[in-house]
């Protein structure tokens, strides 16, 4: 059995998770900091 589709799948899932989870976490962090700065200014 050719293992490469399974290897590509495993790496794809891992990289996708790291990118999406990391991206969402930092997007939420930046948004929260921006909103806090605006609320404190108001």
């Amino acid at each position, binding site marked *: *059995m050719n*293992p*490469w589709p*399974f*290897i590509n*799948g*495993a*790496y794809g*899932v*891992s*990289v996708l*998770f*790291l990118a999406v*989870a*990391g991206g969402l*976490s*930092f997007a*939420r*962090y930046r*948004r*929260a*900091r921006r*909103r*806090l700065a605006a*609320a*404190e200014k*108001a």
Partner: protein
Amino acid sequence: MNEEVLSGTRPVRAGGWLHYLANPARFMRVAVPTLPWLSGIALLLCVVGIVWGYAIAPADWEQGDAARIMYVHVPAAWVAMVGYAALAVCSLLSIVWRHPLADIAAEEIGPVGAGFTAVCLISGSLWGKPMWGAYWVWDARLTSVLILFFLYLGHVALIRAFDNKAHGYRAAAILALAGAVNLPIIVYSVQWWNTLHQGNTISLSGGAKIYITMLYPLLISTLGFYLAFIAMVVARICAAICERKTASALLAAAERRA
């Protein structure tokens, strides 16, 4: 109970750093400048570890190229377990000391830990098909990790299941502490039962059973996954603190106007 121990002439509170960082404002002062460095190093190590494991590391003499899956599967599994241990510690701090930050940390660890556990399960299944001929077997190691995944999901759901958030935190903390019994079961499952899953390749006491050219990318990838987990959780905790401060500031502004 006297918690103070003498260090020279200056009394230092035992576990003082823990209590020091339990203050959200103080945590933010430490976390905000650290976060870009932490994220950058995590990204670098993840890229190096993943590229090295995928393209440069040698194929295994027995499993061939399929063994490359371990460079993402094993780090994800370790992070999933250590993440749950961190969740249990936060739950203990929440129940015993009522640290305000412990509940926030536990809430933010849950989804990230569940994600790493899902990566571990999916990559393990994708390794199982070419090696065992099946995506899934009800093996002790696989089943205990599946239970870990459900414990994470249960924790995430339980926090949000009550109208009063404090009740959700308390119930989820009890679940997390009870579920911690699963961690030694996962670690020792390959020794206690005859499992299809292979035994521990690396242990703190017995050294590594893999060749150095495969060990280095595994360790780099593992360090990258750990730092990525910490960076994501710290970013989420900072976000949660900011969201609460924003809500308080908006409420105070509305009360001033009223």
